[in-house]
């Protein structure tokens, strides 16, 4: 009896060990294991707004076109396309199929876009579909969704009318909100659509076969994917969900996951483990937003100019953030954006403010005279909860106090409270970040248009609005970029915002895993074309 018990215990232990000891890469089965920072909150492509959900969706779904390894647009569901100023026509690949073998048709796109724009759906990303004709009025509930000027000429031809010339329309089609959805499946699932692995249907390279909420996901190669021969990986296992960077590093060291992002706190440990560290610029720009509402101290340009002339983004990046990969923030437009021929920032260099404390103090004196006050009252700096945001705010507070004698009150709030205060204008400065939605300068440029709801500081400048319209309504690259160049100059001259850094990250990747793509827009990291080598 006792012997059997021991034997059972032994077996149990061995069983556990066997299960535990799966490694992060497996050559024979071409499978990998990764960790997510959080559970994907929303896998309905019409409503997804966060990076984790969009990452999963970009692996499992496909739009009309997609990005290749080097960021070029290549055919997705559509074989070929023609786009001019007013219309776009897409011819769909006849082999493109859903994961149950049913072909993807033009109707699936029409349905997805109409539904996303229907105000009843309440999609937060609906605005990205506004490139389509009538989209905005439909989204406001003034026209029925059927009025959308998108037609399925037949099962494999999609004709689109554009609201205005949209130079970057092809880039938009790779975005999650533009993914197709099959009407019959969507209606069958109702409220449950995208709630579980079996409540979704996939047309991308992978399909989700398991979703244990909060714990794990499993993506396997989609046997019906039209381009399945170019996909090497058979399975991507998401076995861990933790936002704790140290836990992730520990899992990596233990050989449990193939990729982990490092931060200022963990990279030194990674160095001592002799891992190859890689660097990547995410495309996100961080900045301090000012409150331009009348009556606010920060509505005064001289106050903003004073801050501009003491804040050194290089010091911020090198001494405060202190991790490689970050770039000093010098403009609202990050360095990776494309211009007319080359990079935008090379064609239109960002003006730089000289670090000059006495000049800054002069600006501040002027501000006091203009405002008719002796002392500038303490300014409120609103920040979120993340450790980096807090650290930056503390640095800012120390800097402005020591250089300008300005008192800063840090207002640290949880996510929703910070957003509420931003929307109601209850701040002087707020730490903010902006990531691109599509590959064009406009994704940053229209942020300060007076009509943009994300312009939470309410900066209103008719000249800036005019330039945004010029860039929006033209499809001539030179005209558009010239306008954006002028916008960049206005943002600097008016010190509308204080760019602090362009986010860069450092990360580790398993040496046997090749072909993982880091990208600024869409799935990041993208394992679609990855393969395990011996």
């Amino acid at each position: 009896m006792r012997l059997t018990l021991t034997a059972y215990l032994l077996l149990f232990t061995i069983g556990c060990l066997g299960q535990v000891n799966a490694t992060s890469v497996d050559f024979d089965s071409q499978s990998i294991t990764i960790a997510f920072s959080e559970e994907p909150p929303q896998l309905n492509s019409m409503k997804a707004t966060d990076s984790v959900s969009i990452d999963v969706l970009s692996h499992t779904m496909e739009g009309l076109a997609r990005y290749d390894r080097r960021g070029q647009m290549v055919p997705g569901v559509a074989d070929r396309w023609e786009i001019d100023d007013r219309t776009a026509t897409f011819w769909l690949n006849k082999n493109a199929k859903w994961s149950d073998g049913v072909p993807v048709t033009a109707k699936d796109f029409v349905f997805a876009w109409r539904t996303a724009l229907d105000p009843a759906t309440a999609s937060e990303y609906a605005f990205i579909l506004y490139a389509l004709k009538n989209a905005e009025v439909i989204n406001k509930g003034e026209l029925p969704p059927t009025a959308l000027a998108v037609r399925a000429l037949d099962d494999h031809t999609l004709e689109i009318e554009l609201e205005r010339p949209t130079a970057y329309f092809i880039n938009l089609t790779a975005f999650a909100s533009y993914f197709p959805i099959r009407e019959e499946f969507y209606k069958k699932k109702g409220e449950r659509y995208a709630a579980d692995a079996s409540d979704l249907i996939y047309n991308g390279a992978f399909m989700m076969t398991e979703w244990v909420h909060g714990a794990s996901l499993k993506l396997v190669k989609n046997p019906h994917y039209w381009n399945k021969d170019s996909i090497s990986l058979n399975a991507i296992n998401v076995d861990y969900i933790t936002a704790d960077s140290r836990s992730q590093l520990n899992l990596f060291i233990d050989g449990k996951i193939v990729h982990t992002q490092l931060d200022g706190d963990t990279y030194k440990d990674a160095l001592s483990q002799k891992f190859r560290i890689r660097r990547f610029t995410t495309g996100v720009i961080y900045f301090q937003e000012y409150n331009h509402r009348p009556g606010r101290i920060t509505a005064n340009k001289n106050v903003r100019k004073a801050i501009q002339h003491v804040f050194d983004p290089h010091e911020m990046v090198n001494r405060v953030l202190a991790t490689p990969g970050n770039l000093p923030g010098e403009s609202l437009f990050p360095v990776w954006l494309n211009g007319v021929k080359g990079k935008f920032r090379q064609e239109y260099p960002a003006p730089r403010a000289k670090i000059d404390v006495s000049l800054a103090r002069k600006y501040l004196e002027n501000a006091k005279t203009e405002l008719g006050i002796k002392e500038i009252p303490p300014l409120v700096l609103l920040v979120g909860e993340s450790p980096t945001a807090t650290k930056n705010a503390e640095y800012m507070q120390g800097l402005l106090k020591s250089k300008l004698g300005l008192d800063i009150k840090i207002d640290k709030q949880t996510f929703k409270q910070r957003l509420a205060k931003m929307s109601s204008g209850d701040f002087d400065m707020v730490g903010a970040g902006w990531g691109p939605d599509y590959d064009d300068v406009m994704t940053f440029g229209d942020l300060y248009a007076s009509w943009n709801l994300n312009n939470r500081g309410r900066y209103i400048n008719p000249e800036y609005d005019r330039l945004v319209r010029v860039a929006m309504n033209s499809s001539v690259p030179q005209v558009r970029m010239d306008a954006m160049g002028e916008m960049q100059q206005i943002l600097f001259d008016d010190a509308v915002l204080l760019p602090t850094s362009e986010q860069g990250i450092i990360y580790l990747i398993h040496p046997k895993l090749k072909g993982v793509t880091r990208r600024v827009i869409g799935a990041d990291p993208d394992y679609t074309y990855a393969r395990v080598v011996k």
Partner: protein
Amino acid sequence: MSVLDFSPARRTAQIEQLTRPSLSYWQDAWIRLRKNVRAIISLYIIILLGIFTALGPVLWQVDPALQDLNQVSQPPSLPKTAILVGQYEPWKGIVIEDFPPEAIEYLEMVDAPMGLRTSDHPTTQRVRLIWNPVHGASGYNIYRNQRYPEDFNDLGLPLGGTFAGNEVSYEDRLSLESRSYYYSVVPTDGFDEYESFSVVEIIPRTSITLDEARSRGLLPEGKTIGEEVSLKFHPFGTDYLGRDIMARLMEGARVSLFIGIFAPLFYVLFGVIYGGFAGYFGGQIDALLMRFADFVVALPFLLFMILFKIAFGIGPGESGIVPMLIALVLLSWPSTARLVRGQVLKIREQGYIDAARLLGGRHHYLVLRHIIPNTIGVILVTLTFAVPFAIFTEAFLSFIGMGVAPPHPSWGSMCNEGVKTMLSHPHELIFPAVFISITVLAFNLLGDGLTEALDSRMRARE
């Protein structure tokens, strides 16, 4: 032998007395406590902590909020010196005009860059690297390690790169310290790296700009660029923004000890009044009051702590200590109330209370003379054990990012910062953690000592 042989013995001494000086309950307890070495040491530690908190800032006059980006995350060490340098001037770098920026033909392999060196004296302000261009390269990546790289996978931190074959310089300003760095330069084809690299060892000197030295009051008369000055001394090292950890511990002590002492004081006081009231009057009032206390006890503590803390909100610039205090008081009083009620109920039934009442003692006489003195021991013990609990709660809230707002430090929030870098900068975790531990420990041991000293059962046993 006759009777006369006997005479009354002379009274040589007093009769043996079997009494000891009359001791009040408190004198007795104090004697007992004094015998308990651990409790007494704890008491001294608590007094020392009080002195550290109250007098520390007077003796160690360093601004806990003063940042020094020249000395970030420095471990405890002796005072350091730095070389004076001028204002940072941007560097254009070196581009070799007559060398092709892009490789003319794609090569399978290229040479490692030759002549990797610094262009001038390296300081912690900046390190400027130059090297000779490599035939076939369309760019270079620069790495930095803290030991000699063993192989291609061990180059260290990827600092950045240049994007042309004739751009042969790189300036590193990334959190430099005065230590050995091994810089590696790897040629690329513009997208992927070639597997060849060269390495150079560089030790930058600690530097401080003239302006900064002046504004920090570190500049003696007549010193100028190229000469040495001594930097501010930090006995416990510095944190992630170069702030003095000793000064921050002192300021953090105010937050942690404030929460740790005042929250228990308030809720124990409230609990005593509430429980005493209920216990003394009994009956319906008691039942009603205790039912309400049961409700509050049933609230899941940590969940409500977080919820209350946020619901009260923190305004700009506020530390958020008061909301935390209120939340703690609101949620923690019932246990004391229950305890005191029980105690009062017990005492109320004692014979001496009846006797006092029969002798005409009034309510307030009974309460002041008998009930309070007899419960105070229990209350004191509760109080000492409540202190560690409150300190831990603050630390826990800080850990999930809902503690005191920056820049106000607390031991808990310092610990939380320190945990993240515990391997690379252990001092940032160890100091606050030790302070929390010592405080919690001291109060616990004192509590134990008090329990023993005040417990009548323990007394009977000796």
